[in-house]
């Protein structure tokens, strides 16, 4: 028997192709990433303490100086906090990928007969799951300080889902950063430096109309504003939503979904391409 005869095992080779193995690979990688968060509780603790600090900072330190007619500031603030939490949390995607690259895990994965997409999808999904937990935690903190959902249970769930979906889209931007930079500390620094202006020059914490005109122009199309307003449209009651945001409730929801779709369409292919090149 020649080596070639020994080697050709069509049945074995077939098993590695198709959708089912790709889904299974994604599940395995997702589980592995989530297990890491459980194993390193300090990471989870500190990534939740920070958003809690932001809630308290804005609700009690800056909040008194912010006067938005027609709405309780805490009801205005919390959707913004959801988005900020989701965006900061999604930065973990790039950091995690850079960590896997620098520790040789990506080389290991790429030498295996697994779906190439699973490393990226497993990473973004596990970070989305973690972000869901953090957003739920923020909801709890919000309820303690006086935030309420005013649109009913269904809209409350939709609002939280919108925040989580937005974090997923941002995870792909973060993935591109991590895959291009490949170093944990640099990715961390680059992520926060690039995300800060977007988070603060937005309607996340304060209404846009107090900003200078040029900044308003940016803040209006900033995806973080669109997401925060989309969530507000679902958590405020209809009258308040119309008074604070203007326009129809659904316009804001659609704009948020559109922002998410545009981000995914741009950054998923770019990240996949960057992964192929590493």
């Amino acid at each position, binding site marked *: 028997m020649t*080596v*070639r005869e*020994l*080697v*050709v*095992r069509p049945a*074995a*080779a077939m*098993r*590695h*192709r198709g959708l089912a*193995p790709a889904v*299974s*690979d994604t599940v*395995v990688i997702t589980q*592995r990433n989530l*297990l*890491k968060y459980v*194993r*390193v509780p300090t990471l989870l603790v500190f990534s939740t303490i920070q958003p809690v600090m932001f809630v308290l900072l804005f609700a009690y330190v800056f909040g008194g100086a912010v006067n938005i007619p027609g709405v309780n500031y805490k009801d205005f603030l919390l959707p913004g906090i959801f988005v900020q939490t989701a965006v900061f949390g999604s930065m973990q995607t790039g950091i995690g990928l850079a960590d896997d690259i620098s*520790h*040789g*895990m990506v*080389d*290991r*994965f*790429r*030498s*295996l*007969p*697994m779906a190439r997409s*699973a490393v990226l999808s497993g990473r973004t999904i596990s970070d989305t799951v973690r972000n869901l937990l953090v957003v739920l935690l923020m909801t709890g903190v919000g309820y303690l300080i006086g935030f309420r959902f005013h649109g009913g249970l269904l809209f409350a769930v939709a609002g939280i889902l919108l925040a989580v979906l937005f974090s997923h889209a941002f995870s792909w931007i973060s993935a591109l950063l991590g895959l291009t930079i490949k170093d944990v500390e640099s990715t961390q620094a680059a992520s926060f430096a690039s995300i800060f202006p977007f988070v603060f020059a937005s309607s996340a914490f304060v209404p846009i109309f107090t900003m200078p005109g040029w900044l308003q122009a940016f803040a209006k199309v900033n995806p973080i504003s669109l997401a925060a307003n989309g969530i507000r449209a679902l958590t405020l009651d209809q009258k308040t939503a119309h008074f604070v945001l203007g326009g129809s409730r659904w316009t804001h929801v659609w704009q948020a979904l559109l922002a998410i779709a545009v981000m995914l369409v741009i950054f998923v292919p770019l990240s996949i391409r960057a992964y192929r090149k590493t």
Partner: protein
Amino acid sequence: MRVLTTLLTPDEGSARVAGHDVVSDADEVRPLIGLAGQYAAVDETLTGRENLVMVGRLYHLERAEARRRADELLERFNLADAGDRVVKTYSGGMRRRLDLAASLVGKPLVLFLDEPTTGLDPSGRLELWGVIKELVSDGTTLLLTTQYLEEADQLADTIAVIDRGRVIAQGTSDELKERVGGDRLELRADDPEQAEKAAQVLSDLRSGAPMVDQATGRISLPVRGGATVLIDAVRALDRAGIPISDLALHRPTLNDVFFSLTGRAAEAEPEDEAAEARGRRGRRP
């Protein structure tokens, strides 16, 4: 190495692993190979067992099969007791063993080891060598890269010496050593003035011109015939009544080969000098 394991697409040229092209048939190559890297690619925050089960699942083994295979490998690599500990707590040698175990989960036909013992202490290195030798004797094809020439000597049937990106020599360890001129008998006469006379006494044994250092009494002469040369040398010197203080048969190491091929020493000298002393040594009683 990265091209052969499908991690990198070559700029030019082609390569086949186990009959499959690494570029066009990469999907066929991956199930057949195992890779263990220079930087142990195991997940520090998972346990040893979790690492192996994860790799097994990514080879698309059933959950139960992946667990069974993990247990088997932990047992074989002497990690069964540490299997449920987080890898962060492992020693360097244990990590390398786990890395090697992970590369074997898919029962590879061809195993790639990229500097498997770099950074290990001598005992860790010997331990890993033992495991690797066992794998090869079980029929696994091994491609190994190493900076330690001693390691190539120990583990490899065929050695390719690469200097600045080019293969400068290729062959078995013995063939390569033959190129630098075989064995040398080295001795030192107690009385330097007798060195020349000693060289003459030994002239029957030599296979080339001897080198005699009059100042120190050191003599070095190329010989053939292995260890019996030592006995003959001792007899001849004893008969002639020349006292000597050192007598050794020096077999060239791959370091000598590298040195003679490139005109400079190998870039990384083995840290472990004891393992280097492979020449059979004799001493006058």
